[in-house]
């Protein structure tokens, strides 16, 4: 009964000062909206990256020079094409081992130019990584063994150099050397704001000649099955270490990459949410402030209520409910605003966003807790008012 009355009085008090209530809520609304939107964007980005890494195909093992440990510097590669052959023997299937040497190069076609990532690769790349062609054909075994100057363009690079024209059979230059376009890839889109379509694949041998090296940067292996992946990883690293006793090699699986990326994004999302949480805290201070004003304004009412039998607790609960009502209404409005903002970002920008139920529940819970924390002091002050003094107040 008393609590029902307290709710009624609290609602009535908020309604009586509509503008003030709305302005006070605004702090909480903005704080909650920021938390919900930022967590949504963090979650969405994480989901997209996971999808893309998994989109590379399953059972993938990436082999790179150096140690993959926190704080270790990236190592220069000592691997050559001969190592690819050695690893292929370990794996038992040449088609499952892809090699890459990469470099950023300027591509030209007539008067147009584009900057792209040049990937010197083997002919098996589209099967090791899942890549689909849009037009033409991919590199052949002969292209790789003879170092033929042929190129397969990423969708973005193709558009940059040729616009709507068909690039197949046309000449381009990569780093000043002439290549012939034999195919184009399907569009991949962006990832974390990086354009994944600005690339060009050429035979690894041609790339090595262009760059004046016989090294390769890394290997990628598609394991025949999931169970063998760890065993294969050890065998490959051992083989490479045997061939290059002075160098370290590391093999990582998709799961490991996902784990690292997930950790980084988790921390990033947490930091963003914490910053947004600070604005929620500021909103809470505003609630505290306005509640103190409310207690002062209604001192006479408090005195009267006490005179007719309200206990300190009854008065305290009434003001606490008023504060909680302020922050939870603000919290609900903030959730609506945050969800809207996240959905707009998702729809109108390349940044993805996903709303999770736990983030909404958390936002609501936190706004209620903020109301309790910042309402306690004004409520206690109201509850402890001396009825004689309160009644005398004008």
């Amino acid at each position, binding site marked *: *009964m*008393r609590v*029902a*009355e307290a709710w009624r009085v609290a609602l*009535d008090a908020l309604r*009586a000062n509509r503008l003030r209530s709305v302005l006070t809520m605004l702090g909480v609304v903005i704080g909650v909206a920021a938390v919900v939107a930022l967590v949504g964007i963090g979650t969405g980005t994480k989901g997209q990256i996971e999808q893309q890494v998994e989109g590379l195909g399953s059972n993938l093992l990436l082999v790179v020079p150096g140690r993959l440990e926190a704080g270790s510097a990236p190592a220069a590669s000592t691997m050559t094409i001969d190592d690819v052959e050695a690893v292929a023997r370990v794996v038992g299937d040449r088609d499952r081992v892809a090699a890459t040497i990469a470099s950023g190069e300027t591509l030209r076609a007539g008067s147009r130019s584009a900057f792209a990532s040049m990937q010197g690769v083997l002919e098996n790349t589209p099967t090791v990584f899942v890549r689909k062609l849009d037009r033409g054909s991919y590199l052949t075994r002969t292209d790789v063994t003879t170092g033929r100057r042929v190129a397969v363009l990423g969708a973005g690079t193709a558009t940059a150099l040729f616009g709507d024209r068909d690039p197949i059979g046309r000449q381009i230059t990569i780093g000043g050397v002439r290549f012939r376009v034999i195919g184009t890839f399907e569009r991949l889109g962006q990832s974390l704001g990086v354009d994944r379509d600005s690339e060009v694949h050429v035979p690894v041998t041609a790339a090595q000649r262009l760059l004046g090296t016989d090294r390769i940067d890394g290997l990628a292996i598609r394991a025949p099955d999931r169970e063998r992946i760890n065993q294969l990883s050890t065998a490959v690293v051992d083989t490479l270490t045997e061939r290059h006793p002075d160098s370290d090699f590391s093999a990582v699986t998709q799961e490991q990459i996902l784990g690292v990326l997930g950790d980084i994004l988790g921390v990033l999302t947490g930091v963003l949410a914490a910053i947004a949480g600070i604005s929620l805290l500021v909103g809470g201070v505003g609630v505290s402030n306005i509640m103190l004003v409310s207690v002062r304004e209604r001192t*006479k*009412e408090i*005195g*009267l*209520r*006490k*005179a*007719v*039998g*309200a*206990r*300190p*607790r*009854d008065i305290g609960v009434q003001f606490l409910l008023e504060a909680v009502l302020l922050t939870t209404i603000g919290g609900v409005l903030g959730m609506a605003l945050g969800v809207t903002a996240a959905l707009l970002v998702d729809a109108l920008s390349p940044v993805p966003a996903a709303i999770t139920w736990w983030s909404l529940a958390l936002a609501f819970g936190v706004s209620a807790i903020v109301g309790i924390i910042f309402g306690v002091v004004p409520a206690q002050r109201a509850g402890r008012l*001396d*009825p*004689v003094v309160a*009644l005398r107040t004008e």
Partner: protein
Amino acid sequence: MTAAIVATGISRTYDLDGVSVPALRGVSLTIEPGDYLAIVGTSGSGKSTLMHLLGGLDRPTGGTLLIGGRDVAGLTPGEMAKLRNETIGFVFQSFHLLARTTARDNVALPLVYRGIGRRERRARATEMLDRVGLSHRVDHRPNQMSGGEQQRVAIARALVTDPSVLLADEPTGNLDSATGQSVLALLESLNAEGVAVVLVTHDREVAARAHRQIVMKDGVIVPDPSSAAVAQ
């Protein structure tokens, strides 16, 4: 029947910035059921302090005060609130009605803190408004009523808990004399029904209507009410 309120040598000293200011210095007083008592005195005489103590809004710094048979010295603020709710009805000079709240809900307010359900609260409040002659004003808000009507609502609110003592602090102070007379007549008719009425006033005409008068001066009761000290 036991006395509603028994004060034995009560005093109240205020501490103002480290200086002790005695507002009441040893007052003994008994209020019996059905009493009609006027406490008279000028401003600063200690009559308001005495009323706050008798009403359980404050506690004496010395002496013994029993309200409804209970010694207030050992009570917590919460227990004091319960005691006020059950024993005392307050009527104030400035009515102290809640704005934006109907006459009925104003009258029902003390029942909220008694934990009584909404339906019964409203029924009893309506009945009480009828008793003070305001059955046509049940859904009106204070600003829609005259001063006399507002004071009647306040009296109804004081009565709704069926208290043994009605404490009225200058109940006619904000009313014109005709309205004041009718409010006093109402209090007297309630007294006739058995409620003890304690009037605090500086108006000797009003005080003269009570069955008993106490004159306060400098925090003590002046021995003889007919003495020159009353007149001033």
